[in-house]
């Protein structure tokens, strides 16, 4: 079972369900269960590879950071100190908040990375046009923007090189990096012109943003996409109901972190 085979809109919906649920829930048990389920899903679909693991690393660092900072610094009532490290005092209540945030970041992070790494952008856009009735004008705008990204990157590189050569005579005291707008102006100028040209080219080929048109490649919504979304809803509901019946469930009421 590969994530790539699902309809991108189905994946997007499933992702959104998990993200929204994790934002509402604020207790370690429910959050932990959501995290475990997401992780199991990642393992079952064999969606981990070196590339997306790399993307997860900074996220893990951030999550661990949140964990210990909350454990030591959260403002909580009646804290019980469970450990000390130099001036830091870790409290039980803080640890719980830290755990919730840790699980939340990880859950949202891995499901989103899973989604982006396993979805072809053009397929997503086609699917959004068909399943979500997205205006083709906006959809093709997004597609063209995607095509511009690599050239923007190489342009920026060239510009930095060009500015470095220009910078020679302004000796060290002035050897700071160019301010962002100095880079932004040429990039913006080039890309606005390019965008205009693409728009003219599209118009010249009979494209109008609110037109009736057919599609060469279509992305269909199959039975397994319905099952996939339904299962996600079921599992999330089951987790929430289960923790409610156990009396664990706490909904988000306000920021309680440090």
């Amino acid at each position, binding site marked *: 079972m590969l994530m790539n085979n699902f309809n991108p809109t189905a994946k997007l919906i499933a992702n959104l369900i998990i993200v929204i649920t994790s934002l509402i829930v604020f207790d370690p048990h429910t959050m932990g269960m959501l995290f475990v389920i997401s992780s199991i899903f990642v393992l079952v679909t064999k969606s981990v590879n070196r590339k997306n693991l790399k993307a997860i690393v900074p996220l893990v660092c951030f999550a661990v950071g949140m964990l210990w900072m909350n454990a030591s610094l959260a403002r909580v009532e009646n804290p019980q100190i469970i450990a000390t490290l130099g001036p830091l005092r870790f409290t039980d209540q803080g640890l719980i908040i830290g755990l919730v945030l840790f699980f939340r970041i990880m859950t949202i992070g891995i499901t989103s990375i899973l989604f982006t790494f396993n979805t072809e*952008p053009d397929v997503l856009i086609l699917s959004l046009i068909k399943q979500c009735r997205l205006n083709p004008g906006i959809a093709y705008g997004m597609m063209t923007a995607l095509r511009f990204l690599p050239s923007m990157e190489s342009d920026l590189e060239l510009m930095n*090189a060009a500015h470095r050569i220009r910078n020679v*005579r302004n000796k060290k005291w002035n050897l700071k990096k160019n301010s962002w707008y100095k880079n932004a102006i040429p990039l913006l100028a080039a890309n606005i012109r390019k965008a205009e040209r693409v728009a003219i080219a599209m118009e010249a080929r009979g494209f109008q943003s609110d037109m009736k048109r*057919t599609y060469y490649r279509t992305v269909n919504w199959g039975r397994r996409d319905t099952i996939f979304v339904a299962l996600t809803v079921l599992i999330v509901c089951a987790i929430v109901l289960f923790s409610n019946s156990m009396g664990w469930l706490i909904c988000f009421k306000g920021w309680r972190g440090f």
Partner: protein
Amino acid sequence: MSMIEVSHLYVEINGRIILKDINITFETNERILILGESGCGKSTLLLALLGIVQKYDNMNVSGDVLINGISIVDMEPIDLVKVFGIVFQNPESQFCSLYPKDEVAFGLENQCVDPNDMENIIELVMKDFDFPEEKENYPINILSGGEQQRLALACVAAMGSEMILMDEPTANLDPEGRRQVIVTAKKAGLEGKGLFVVEHNLESWLPFLDRLIVVGSDGTIFCDGNYREMFHLHWKRFVEKGIWCPHTLQISRVLEKKGYTFYKIPCCIQELKDENISCSILNQAVSEYFDADQKEDEQFKKAVLKLERLTAGYGRNHMVLNSINLTVYEGDFFALVGGNGSGKSTLSKAILNLVPIIDGSISILGKDISKYKANDVHEIIGYVFQNPEHQFVEDTVWSELAYSHGKHTMDKDSIKNEIFKLLKDFDLEKHIEVNPFNLSGGQKRRLSVATMLIGDRKILILDEPTFGQDVKNTNKIMKKMTRLNNLGMTVIMITHDLDLVDAYANRVAVMNGGEIVYEGNTRGLWNEKNVIEKSGLELPFRIKILEEVGSNAYEQLQSNG
């Protein structure tokens, strides 16, 4: 076939008159060439035919374009597509999909073609327009310029347009890509598609075009008719105005002065060949026309730049340069040539320490590059980038030049004087307060060269100095370079245009696939036909004409030269 009538077309953009009282009538199966000075509104004319100019708010349009008597303003865009399709100059900025097949399908989708039929149509046009089959699933971004332009042609053909409008379709391509596009366009013309071409690479296009329309600098039609007649009648005015004229025609004019009479005005090499001209006269005419006094190689010059077994690239798996040996001597006008992706830009960046060097050495002025401090290399070598905009850092032309100066070298008056002198030299003194981004293409290019001349750099590298420039600006820039070169500056020019190399460079290196395949004086290169062909380049016109029209003449020239 449809009848097109442009009547009293007038276009004004932001208060500037671009086209004035344009009246043309043509049928969509005609093959028409459009010429004109740069910025005279040729592209605007094409967009007006497509009904796009008429839709913009900042443009004031009057007059009409009629297709079979119906105004295009009243036509649905989808019906218009059946008549006109367009291919633009810049290959990258005319696509909106990620893959070639989707791009061809885009037009069909707009026409509401049944998706089941699309596959067949796409396969057919892509084959018809020589799109390489193995690249059908490549992302469009990594295709070469020639492939992208052929894809654009295929897109137009798929929609069934009667006439293909082309806005300088080969201007941004290397000779190989240019050849590919011309072959494909010719095929489309022979198959009955009308062609409406803005182009200045005339020799290869003229044989399959019939009619010439010239737009004057005031935005009116200067002349319109059979191209042979038009060139015959007006060529002097064309040359004066800086409108491209076929070299063959201009040489035939020189020949006429020498007493040779033509019955038919030759507009391409083949036609000149048919005339059976005696070699000695041709030889004289060619050297007179091209003003070919080749620079002699002086012996025992000092090497200013020496690369030995240089291997460089962006990491172990992405090596662009492979064991390069190259020497540039003091006072050289050196040309580094090669097709797209041959590694010539990377080599120039390696010299500037912008690309990691894996193996081998670079010595500049006899000192190894690793012994220079970080920025000292840039103080010796100037680099003019292909896109001048990349280099601009300030808000006015004046401060752009002052920026290069730094703040510590001289007193204020001498700085001022130097900047004024440069501005005057480069025809920019009227634009001191203008933002560099608002300059015209030629002015931008000149400013970017000027910024590199402040200080005392010994070597100047130019990346495609004539890219996107018209005849006038090309000559202007190259004259400046020759003068600088005569004053002792070593100039290294990166290009794929061997005509430029023939006219200006005394030494040349040809790159192909990250290796140097030829290094030596320019004249010697013209004997290495297979090197030129393999590297996807094209012999300069002067050599071609001498070889093809009189092979004896070429040998004579060599023994004389």
